[in-house]
């Protein structure tokens, strides 16, 4: 069953927590802070979580948003889990390459590929 927080759509796909962004722009600091808090609240009680974050609708993100992704990845790793990112538009993917964060994150072209890797 989907569990909607204000800026995210969080759902369960088998044993994977799937997180979809609902906004085209992830720029506003307050929104980014809220996104980070919502994800941490969801993952906090979980052990070894498998997490998929989908960027299907995202057209712009800032360095502050990248910072939140890094924090989420650290939390997931600390819990012995796995985070994969998917469905990132080419322009946004370039941001990951420029910052070399493609080395830090596991990135898949599609949600299906990410779910397969998490299975």
């Amino acid at each position: 069953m989907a569990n909607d927080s204000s800026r995210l759509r969080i759902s369960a796909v088998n044993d994977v927590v799937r997180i979809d962004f609902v906004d085209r722009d992830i720029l506003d600091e307050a929104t980014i802070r809220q996104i980070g808090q919502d994800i941490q609240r969801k993952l906090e009680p979980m052990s070894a979580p498998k997490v998929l974050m989908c960027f299907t609708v995202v057209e712009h993100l800032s360095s502050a948003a990248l910072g939140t992704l890094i924090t989420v990845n650290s939390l997931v790793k600390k819990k012995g889990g796995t985070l994969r990112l998917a469905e990132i538009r080419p322009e946004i993917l370039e941001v990951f390459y420029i910052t070399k964060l493609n080395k830090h994150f596991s990135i898949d072209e599609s949600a299906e590929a990410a779910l397969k890797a998490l299975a």
Partner: protein
Amino acid sequence: MPARIEGHAILRGPRAEIDACQSAVEQAMDQHGYGREALFAVRLALEEALVNAIRHGNRHVPDGQVDFQWSVDGDEARFDVRDQGEGFDPDAVPDPTEDDNLEIPSGRGIMLMKAYMSEVEYRDPGNHLAMVYRKSKGA
């Protein structure tokens, strides 16, 4: 080709001010025929520049303001962002792409501006950022 379009704004911090600036610049660039890649680059760089000035530059300045001036013509878009802080040394910011720094959540704004703009210069004492995007960069 339309004439050069210029704008000036004083920002005090609310998100709506940044959005209004972004919207005005985007409209001007659109009128001058800049493509999607250019709009993406400038939007990203301006986001980092304005947020840095408001959040970091004016951190210790009560009721601080950020002065934002810009111009767009058929060849280039120029931006000047001035905060009222004491400035900083941009060369002292650690390289976020080094392996040891990849897990640090902050410190990527300046490198993104440099990657996406044609010119980025912090003028002494570091509270005046001048940036240029040349249309040829996106060609």
